């Protein structure tokens, strides 16, 4: 026991050795590694000129692994030639499309289009869609059922916003996709989770796949789906389901595993069969955790449905996308706000369901409409307004003359900002670009690829052992050998600058929130809202103010990745043992000393975990910022998407995933070792 403690304490003593005149091996290693890297990065171009060795800065074209071509060819073969005898691969994809298309069409007809027979001009209306009043009242009553009247008011206002600001039809198209994708994602995720729970071997197999799926950038999902399923809402739905399912799988497995052993034994002792044990004991007991998963699926679905507008999902995402392309400020902000509003409504609603408590049973003697007054009323409203819509257009569609628009307001606001603050914005931008962004960019993109592989391998090996070092070096080699070195280094540079700024802003905010309950309630609410917003939305204001380029991308990434830095810092500060703080107080620490000497050192593991999450979010957002004209791996994926080049998309996507995986492993290892040092395992 004592031995173990001493072993753990050893790294902590290392800095002391450094102060007494003999720099520790660790310090020499890191400083040396950095200096060599810096020198090579600075003079790589000069080296190339002196030795006339272009391979120093460019991975030789001849030695590139043409993985992208292979993948593209394989896919072509799949799509064009693969034949299982009775059916072809094409038939399989068509079959899957058909299965998803049918319910989607029904949902869409119900919410937006109305039911029709026939096609195009000859179409005959059979039944109108649900009237907007009906949909709002359904949403409100759900909120009432899930929680209370305050939530009902919030949800009502959100949906009313969609109607009043002319976003109704697009919003309903988006909602239809969400309503179809969520049940599929939840059911599929739960099913896989159950299998993984029952078969540990399957879980071990599934885990790396899920890890990869969560780190591969969203655009990279779209490319193969686009190639296999074509352009359109169904392809978008499939991409959405695939994207939103992994967390549900993970959460279901964890939730099932965390059902207390005794409860399972109780189930077995009363003689449950396997199925009964699962559906009557395990799943109901795990329900609160499972509902957290459902909430996640809903939010990820919304996020992806917006992004998938690039492959034809339509709806609000499409509006934002076209507005971005046309630089239509007002339109973009309006559609963006509609997404925000919808995200907030869906998030609060599903969270309310997650913590909803079952209510006592009502007297079954009462007639149905007395036991369920709200339900009865809502059905009545829905039927009445929908039928009335056939005669009175106001019921069918929100009256156009009552539509408010803020488009011009936003246009003039942005214009006003740009006229009055252009110089100061531009000054900030220029300073940051010159002082921070460009030097970092030069440093990273200057690193010769060969040394890059070595340095990544060495660093990873030093922190997490040689196995991971080899893996990290291999992954880096893969990136270089795919001819993506420069793009990858651009990604790393944008990511590190953004993470740095996000940490500089986020960690102090988190510390403040951790020490001050009032600050916590404000900051917490802000961060919660920021986190529910689909990533796409962040681009809108940024582009409006800063136009396209690395700087805009960085701002968007910082905004998106801020949340975990704040949250983990606050959590770390708050979870410091009260006794230790009291010990500090009785030793006569000032509150500043308590913060610096006690709270911060103990919160270090938490800060590192926050850093890890910040990096992950930054990388995922970075890919989306390809839309505002970065020149990194994200752009590569985006280009692949526009050209439907599956090989290029997958290789670039994998490269992003590899960067994320290396960062994740290294930072997690750092967090773990600092936890061990503090004995907080």
């Amino acid at each position, binding site marked *: 026991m004592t031995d173990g403690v001493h072993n753990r304490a050893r790294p902590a003593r290392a800095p002391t050795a450094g102060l007494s005149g003999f720099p520790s091996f660790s310090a020499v290693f890191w400083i040396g590694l950095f200096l060599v890297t810096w020198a090579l990065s600075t003079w790589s171009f000069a080296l190339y000129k002196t030795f006339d060795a272009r391979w120093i800065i460019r991975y030789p074209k001849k030695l590139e692994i043409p993985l992208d071509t292979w993948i593209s060819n394989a896919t072509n073969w799949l799509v064009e030639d693969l034949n299982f005898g009775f059916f072809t691969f094409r038939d399989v994809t068509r079959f899957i499309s058909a299965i998803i298309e049918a319910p989607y069409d029904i949902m869409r007809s119900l919410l937006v289009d109305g039911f029709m027979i026939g096609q195009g001009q000859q179409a005959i209306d059979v039944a109108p869609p649900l009237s907007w009043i009906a949909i709002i009242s359904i949403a409100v009553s759900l909120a009432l059922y899930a929680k209370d009247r305050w939530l009902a008011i919030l949800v009502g206002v959100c949906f009313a916003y969609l109607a009043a600001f002319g976003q109704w039809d697009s919003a309903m198209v988006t909602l239809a996709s969400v309503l179809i994708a969520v049940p599929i994602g939840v059911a599929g995720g739960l099913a896989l989770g159950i299998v993984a729970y029952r078969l540990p071997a399957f879980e071990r197999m599934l885990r790396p796949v899920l890890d990869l799926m969560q780190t591969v950038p969203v655009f990279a999902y779209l490319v193969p789906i686009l190639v296999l399923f074509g352009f359109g809402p169904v392809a978008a739905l499939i991409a959405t389901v695939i994207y939103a399912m992994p967390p549900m799988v993970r959460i279901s497995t964890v939730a099932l595993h965390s059902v*207390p052993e005794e*409860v399972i034994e*109780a189930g077995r*002792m*009363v*003689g*449950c069969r396997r199925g009964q044990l699962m559906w009557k*004991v395990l799943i109901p*007991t795990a329900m609160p955790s499972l509902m957290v998963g459902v909430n996640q699926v809903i939010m990820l679905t919304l996020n992806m449905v917006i992004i998938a507008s690039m492959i034809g999902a339509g709806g609000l995402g499409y509006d934002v996308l076209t507005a971005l392309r046309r630089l239509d400020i007002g339109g973009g902000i309006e559609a963006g706000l509609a997404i925000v509003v919808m995200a907030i409504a869906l998030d609060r609603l599903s969270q309310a369901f997650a913590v909803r408590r*079952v209510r006592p049973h009502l007297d079954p003697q009462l007639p149905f409409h007395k036991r369920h007054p709200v339900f009865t009323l809502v059905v009545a409203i829905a039927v009445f307004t929908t039928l009335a819509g056939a005669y009175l257009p106001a019921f069918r569609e929100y009256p156009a003359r009552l539509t408010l628009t803020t488009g011009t307001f936003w246009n003039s606001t942005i214009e006003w900002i740009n006229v009055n603050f252009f110089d100061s914005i531009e000054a900030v931008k220029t300073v940051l670009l010159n002082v921070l962004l460009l030097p970092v960019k030069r440093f990273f993109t200057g690193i010769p690829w060969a040394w890059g592989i070595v340095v990544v391998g060495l660093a990873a090996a030093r922190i997490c052992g040689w196995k991971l070092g080899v893996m990290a070096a291999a992954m880096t080699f893969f990136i270089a050998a795919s001819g993506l070195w420069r793009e990858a280094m651009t990604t790393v540079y944008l990511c590190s600058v953004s993470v740095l700024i996000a940490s500089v802003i986020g960690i102090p905010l988190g510390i403040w929130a951790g020490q001050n309950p009032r600050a916590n309630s404000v900051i917490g609410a802000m961060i919660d809202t920021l986190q529910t917003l689909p990533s796409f939305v962040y681009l809108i204001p940024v582009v409006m103010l800063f136009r396209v380029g690395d700087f805009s991308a960085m701002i968007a990434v910082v905004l998106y990745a801020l949340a975990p830095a704040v949250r983990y810092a606050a959590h770390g500060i708050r979870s410091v043992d009260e006794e230790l703080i009291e010990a500090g107080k009785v030793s006569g620490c000032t509150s500043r000393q308590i913060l610096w000497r006690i709270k911060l050192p103990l919160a270090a593991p938490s800060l590192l975990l926050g850093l890890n999450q910040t990096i992950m979010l930054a990388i995922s957002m970075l890919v989306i910022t390809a839309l505002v004209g970065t020149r990194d791996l994200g752009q590569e994926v985006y280009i692949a998407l526009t050209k439907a080049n599956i090989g290029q998309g997958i290789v670039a996507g994998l490269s992003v995933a590899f960067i994320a995986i290396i960062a994740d492993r290294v930072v997690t290892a750092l967090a773990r070792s600092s936890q061990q040092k503090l004995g907080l395992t």
Partner: protein
Amino acid sequence: MERPVILDCRGVWKLYGPHTRNFLEKHNGSPTDMALAEANIISAVRDASVKIRKGEIFVIMGLSGSGKSTLVRCLSRLVEPTAGEIRFEGSDLLAMSENELIHLRRKKMGMVFQHFALLPHLTVLQNAAFPLDVQGVDRRTREEKARQMIDIVGLTGREDYYPRQLSGGQQQRVGIARSLVADPDLWFLDEPFSALDPLIRREMQDEFLRLQSMLQKTIVFITHDFDEAIRLADRIAVMKGGRIEQTATPEELVLNPSTPYVEEFTRHVPRAKVMKLRSVMSPDVPDGVYAGELSGNRTVADTIHQIDAATHPFKVTGEEGEVIGTIDARTAIDVMIGRTGA
């Protein structure tokens, strides 16, 4: 008169680690501590044999890690023993198929858990009715039975509460109601009162004895609390390091501990708390005046006030009410203050 054996468990082993069954065979069924440690195998239960007789309260006592919980899980086959034989009412429990086992558990076994193991999404009534629900009993019948059980455990009026709305003691009452609703013959209780406050624990023990006097189940009761064991048990098996050190009545255990470990445990137990009148009485019954009759199965501590207050000795009676001896205040007080070496 010996009562029939309900559960007969012989030479049960439970080992955790790689290839435990081969390992056990290789060491002729009794590996040494060294061999276990070398093979990286942890032994939870080692060569345990117990016979549980109809209608008795059989307590398995041991500190944490002694293997008592694993043993009871072997007896109910929640855990598959590595080796050994377990017979339930004569039939081989370990040879039973999944379906037979399910049938057995539905009809013949009930179990109460340390942390209650109630289902959080069901009401008190639904929790109590759950075993019947699983069996497919229709709602009206099962709720009626569950209501009876809830009444017996004293929770009437709380049928529609959820477990989280109840105190620990109340939750365990629901656990007891659930374990009894299918009217089992064999009742397992795995440290049922350990998670409760001392005062509530005492109350629940009394409640448990009251229930048992009403229901006459065969009981396997797990505890780490020696006082609890002595209070409740007809017989106690003391476990240490996976082995059963001694199986005996509380009295025998205190009077004749067979190992130093058991002796260590029983050293501080007041003799009077376990000594029965039948074992301290004098077997002669001289003519004379007696204050009354006392059952030979009652303990000295239990009856000392009565004996001390009377001016004459008491007759001691046996199982059938026949007089088997006498006891006077002097003898009883000797036992109380530990003057007799017995």
